[in-house]
């Protein structure tokens, strides 16, 4: 095991950012890394990572598209060999599309040794992948850290905030990679309750937002978004949480198209759970990162006295 000189007691876990966390969804990465640190975990960016391909290749004869995900898993293997991790064989993902692609590719290689051998032979300049890396998602790590541990770090419980968690597809389906019950997930509910938020049940929480169809059929996606958001709002939600940068785009940015189609529609902010965690931990009182949203959550958060723009001592508006 490598000596840990730099970060005290923090537990080190490598994480894979992927394309969107470095560009459109910087707030997802920044808040996840900061929230994990408060919970005693140092997320280390995977060295020399490459695009995972965003979708798991479903065609039986298509091995080529599994090379990209596998190269990323190899980086974890190398980090361990170099003693950079304390026997940590897990790779954390924040984006659910990356999670799904990396975990499914890993699984296919484990289930089909012949496929792994073909790819290992093809990757001439790389060492062989041994199939020992585990791919996990941020929500799993947070749950593993424990509701009690999270509660203990809460300085400003989000008691006034009614939040409807949205899961989308890639964390729940297919079943063999699911982080929770694919038909009745509760992991976000548990984490939201831990930071004091009022959890709103939304029957549309696992209905697809349309995913990449947003490129080809944006008004179809707007319809799906309209259904998902309208049901959440009817159930009393003031905000939606999602882990996925693509769901976030479809549920948040596509509200522009929703309003074109349904002029009476009133917007609802969408953010990721780690952003709300930071607010509850008393960090980011200025609402840094929320400016990237299409529907700005800051007016709502100010109204709920969760940003420093409000009078925090009296709780008055």
């Amino acid at each position, binding site marked *: 095991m490598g000596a840990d000189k730099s970060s005290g007691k923090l537990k080190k876990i490598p994480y894979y950012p*992927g*394309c*969107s966390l470095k*560009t*459109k*969804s910087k707030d997802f990465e920044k808040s996840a890394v900061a929230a994990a640190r408060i919970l005693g975990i140092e997320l280390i960016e995977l060295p020399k990572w490459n*695009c995972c*391909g*965003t*979708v798991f290749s*479903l*065609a*039986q*004869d*298509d091995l080529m*598209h599994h090379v990209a995900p596998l190269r990323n898993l190899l980086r974890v293997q190398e980090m361990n060999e170099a003693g950079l991790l304390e026997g940590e064989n897990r790779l954390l993902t924040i*984006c659910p*599309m990356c999670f799904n692609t990396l975990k499914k590719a890993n699984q296919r290689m484990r289930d089909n040794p012949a496929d792994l051998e073909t790819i290992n032979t093809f990757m001439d300049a790389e060492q062989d992948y041994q199939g020992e890396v585990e791919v996990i998602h941020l929500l799993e790590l947070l749950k593993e850290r424990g509701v009690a541990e999270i509660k203990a770090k809460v300085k400003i419980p989000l008691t006034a905030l009614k939040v409807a968690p949205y899961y989308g*597809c890639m964390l*729940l*389906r*297919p*079943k063999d990679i699911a982080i929770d019950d*694919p*038909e009745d997930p509760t992991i976000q509910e548990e984490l939201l309750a831990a930071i004091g938020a009022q959890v709103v049940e939304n029957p549309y929480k*696992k*209905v*697809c937002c*349309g*995913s*990449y*169809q*947003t*490129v*080809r*059929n*944006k008004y*179809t996606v707007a*319809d*799906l978004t309209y259904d998902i958001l309208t049901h959440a709002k009817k159930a009393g939600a003031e905000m939606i949480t999602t882990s996925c*940068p*693509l769901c*976030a*785009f479809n549920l948040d*940015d596509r509200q522009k198209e929703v309003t074109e189609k349904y002029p009476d529609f009133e917007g609802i902010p969408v953010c990721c759970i780690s952003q709300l965690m930071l607010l509850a931990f008393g960090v980011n009182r200025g609402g840094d990162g929320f400016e990237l949203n299409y529907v700005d959550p800051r007016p709502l958060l100010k109204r709920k006295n969760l940003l420093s723009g409000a009078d925090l001592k009296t709780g008055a508006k």
Partner: protein
Amino acid sequence: MKKISITSDNYEFLEKVKQLSGEPITLCDQCGTCAGSCPMISEMDISPSEMLRLVQLGQEEVLDTKAMWLCASCFTCTVRCPRGLDLSKIAEALRQITLRKAVDQIDIKLISEEELSRLPQIALVSACRKFTG
């Protein structure tokens, strides 16, 4: 009603889809759970279960339908199929048959600058993976 007669060509097409998807397509007993679960059903010209039936019968005309291009690979049908079929893989096989003939379904050059600046990278990469050969 259209009369269908099955020839060896039909069998060949079914075998091709079975091979590409790795799914025992003939297991489908047309219960319709996939159609009832599909978030895109209202936009589709044929339902996912009809898509499957056409494949079972080896009808290549299934490749001319819109449905397979509206599938977002959300895997809802996959987790619910009582026969354990992975419909996402079957739809992918159908798309691949067309895409491998270099018949793209999107042209990035036709997307406006404004839209390109809005779309997140994962949307563009996955759309290129699913809609171009």
